[in-house]
């Protein structure tokens, strides 16, 4: 039920994303742009700019939402999120290294480097969380340390490069400015299978929620499950960062919103987190394009503007 509502909301945001922007199209214009095939202006705006950008937003949001849900499940820690735990920063550092060391590098290779960075970040995390649930405080502290370390390295790298300003705004704050079909073509083959594997993993995540020993008694290979989940987190976060830079809080907020809608069962929670994440990023991107029209804000500012108060709310009012 909630799934349908979220899907509906996503379709509405998708429509609005196609209609609204620096240039406002009317609904008839937008439909004409979608359907007609005669190279007119509306078609260009709809097919080459707005539709791919909306799809990129959906992919990025779903990747981050699922990353957050996976991290919260395997660490049994409601504060887990790829930004807080430094996976995003690790991917971002790899992206920055790629940009600075190999200017003019193909976007495909940049995505590969970024995903490898995400996997390294997930590997660091895995080494900390290997022995089952570690306390929220220790995990969060470790995450802050990892995140700060990689974050400093990113800023250092960008600052020492000649293209600092151009690069850093879209990248550090997170945004979808200029993202196109090619981005979707590069990350969709990563994000879609990874989300499918994550969904197949959900019964095991449900068992893991009962404690490692009980999960093992239920026939779940706990170490292997954790390993697969963190590989997925690294790949998904890396894919998202390669398209949108450092978008914060989506991975944290999406699973919590989803939990309040569908409950603790990972079989529902994880796909719902994908939808919630997609909706959050697509909405943030839409708003980012509208608030200072015809210019635009980095979308990550908006996810942070929603996410940070939500985190404060969690800290203050939940258990």
């Amino acid at each position, binding site marked *: 039920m909630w799934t349908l509502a979220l899907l509906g909301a996503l379709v509405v945001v998708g429509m609005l994303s196609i209609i609204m922007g620096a240039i406002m199209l009317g609904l008839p214009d937008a439909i004409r742009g979608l359907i007609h095939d005669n190279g007119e202006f509306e078609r260009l705006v709809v097919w080459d700019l707005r539709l791919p950008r909306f799809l990129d937003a959906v992919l990025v949001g779903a990747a981050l939402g699922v990353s957050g849900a996976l991290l919260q499940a395997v660490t*049994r820690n409601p504060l887990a999120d790829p930004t807080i735990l430094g996976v995003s920063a690790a991917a971002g550092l790899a992206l920055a290294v790629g940009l600075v060391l190999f200017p003019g590098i193909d976007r495909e290779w940049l995505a590969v480097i970024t995903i490898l960075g995400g996997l390294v970040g997930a590997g660091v995390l895995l080494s900390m969380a290997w022995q089952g649930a570690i306390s929220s405080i220790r995990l969060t502290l470790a995450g802050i340390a990892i995140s700060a370390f990689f974050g400093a390295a990113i800023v250092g790298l960008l600052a020492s490069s000649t293209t600092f300003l151009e690069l850093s705004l879209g990248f550090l704050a997170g945004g979808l400015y200029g993202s196109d079909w090619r981005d979707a073509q590069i990350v969709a083959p990563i994000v879609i299978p990874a989300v499918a594997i994550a*969904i*197949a*993993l959900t*019964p*095991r995540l*449900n*068992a893991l*929620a*009962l*404690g490692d*020993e*009980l999960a*093992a*008694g*239920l*026939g*779940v*290979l706990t170490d292997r499950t954790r390993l697969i989940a963190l590989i997925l987190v690294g790949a998904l976060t890396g894919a998202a960062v390669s398209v949108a830079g450092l978008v914060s809080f989506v991975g944290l907020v999406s699973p919590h919103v989803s939990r309040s809608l569908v409950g*603790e*069962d990972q079989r529902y929670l994880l796909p719902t987190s994908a939808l919630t994440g997609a909706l959050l990023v697509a909405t943030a991107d839409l708003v980012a394009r509208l608030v200072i029209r015809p210019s635009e804000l980095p979308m990550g500012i908006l996810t942070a503007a929603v996410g940070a108060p939500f985190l404060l709310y969690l800290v203050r009012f939940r258990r």
Partner: protein
Amino acid sequence: MDLSAQGLTLRYGQKTVIDGVSLDVPSGEFVVIVGPNAGGKSTLLRGLARVMRPAAGVVRLGGDDIATLDAREVARRLAILPQMQQFDVDLVVEELVWRGRTPHHRPFRPATQADLAAVERAIEHARIEGLRERPLRSLSGGERQRAWLALALAQEPRVLLLDEPTTFLDLRHQVEVMEVLARLNQGGLTVIAVLHDLALASRYAQRIIAIADGKIALDGAPSEVLTPDALSRVFGLDMVALSDPRTGRPLPFPA
């Protein structure tokens, strides 16, 4: 289903906790494991359940070496209930019990009639019919323990291992849990439970195994094992024993 171990050795890092234990539990037996803390009781259960890999030795379940069986196959034959759950899981009772079906599930496959029947039987056997919709955290200790027991029963195991299922429960709830186990045992389930309470052990066990320093110290019927001499050696404490006026079983306690 029978469960046996030959030369089972279990280690945490360099520390040997279970040292070459061999035992043979025939199908349908009710075994209680007793012994001092840190003697290796819980570790032995983990090794028997394939939750922990042995450093040496073999565990056989229904004749098959569990190391060569798929983890899920082991979980369909044998369930283990670890010590009182410290995890504060945000579930209602029925959801918890459903998770016991995990080893029977395949990804992307909906629940079957068999799943539903197993869950219903588990709820009935654990006597938690009235608690289905209750959040776990709202339950009393005894109710919660029976909810976790129902989770294990939903696996439809033929061997059930329990680690201190009665600890932290008051007398009535202890007896309730043990009565549930006794009934299941009469239905053919092999039960192996770690208990600290020697009176409960004496009352319900067909066979008592005492584990100390990673080895089997005593093994036999309650009347053979629960003697003051034998227990004094195992627990390092002077013991005396009365006998239950109704059953004649020994009732040991510290002198």
